[in-house]
């Protein structure tokens, strides 16, 4: 459909959630905004292929998600930089404790496989139905459901269960226990 003023307004109205999705996926504020910009350009360049009356946010999220994926293949995530950059994008810094908890959460989220992370964000934060999330990710509804479930149990293991797989005994402890056999 042509780029009408009302369509323009609708695209603009999707920008805040597109940014939130991009930041949640990439963990990096600057990179997220580049992704959003590229998404907007691509959406408008291909606006003729948007079906009037269909779900505009889902269409835009699909573009962003595919861009992120192809970008991801090209360069590795800058994990080291992620937290600092993300914190910069927040208008108000959360209080110290809340901030620690937030970083811990962000860190755990980054540990999920990409498939699971995007499914969890789309359903649990963006508020898409399983059906829409499946359309955005180009997979079956059942696949989305199982990715969301696996994401949730992995996060709870990482955040709330003692001795989750990532926090095994550290080197020193192991050396004390295992070494020095005589």
């Amino acid at each position, binding site marked *: 459909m042509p780029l009408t003023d009302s369509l323009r307004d609708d695209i*603009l109205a999707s920008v805040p959630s597109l940014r939130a999705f991009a930041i949640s996926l990439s963990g990096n504020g600057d990179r997220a905004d580049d992704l959003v910009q*590229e998404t907007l*350009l691509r959406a408008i360049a291909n606006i003729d292929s948007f079906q009037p009356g269909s779900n505009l946010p889902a269409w835009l999220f699909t573009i962003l998600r595919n861009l992120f994926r192809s970008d991801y293949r090209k360069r590795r995530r800058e994990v080291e930089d992620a937290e600092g950059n993300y914190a910069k994008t927040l208008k108000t810094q959360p209080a110290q404790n809340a901030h620690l908890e*937030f970083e811990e959460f962000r860190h755990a989220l980054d540990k999920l496989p990409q498939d699971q992370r995007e499914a969890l964000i789309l359903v649990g934060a963006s508020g898409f139905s399983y059906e829409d999330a499946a359309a955005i990710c180009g997979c079956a509804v059942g696949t989305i459901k199982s990715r969301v479930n696996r994401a949730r149990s992995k996060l709870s293991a990482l*955040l*709330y269960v003692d001795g989750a797989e990532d926090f095994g005994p550290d080197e020193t402890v192991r050396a004390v226990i295992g070494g020095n056999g005589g």
Partner: protein
Amino acid sequence: MKEVKKQGGLNAEIQSRIGHQLRAMYDDVVRQGVPDRFAELIRKLDGPEAAAAQMDDPAKTDGRD
């Protein structure tokens, strides 16, 4: 089945906490609204050609003529 129920309760609590944290992270960004650069970008693009011309990668505007 008592144990399963108990576990389910604990699990539900953790899950609601995770859901809350996830939305808090996301909504922090949503609340920032639309940065000026995007509002300007959308305002000044008058059509698909203008957008295509600005894209980084020329490959997607079926660039064979």
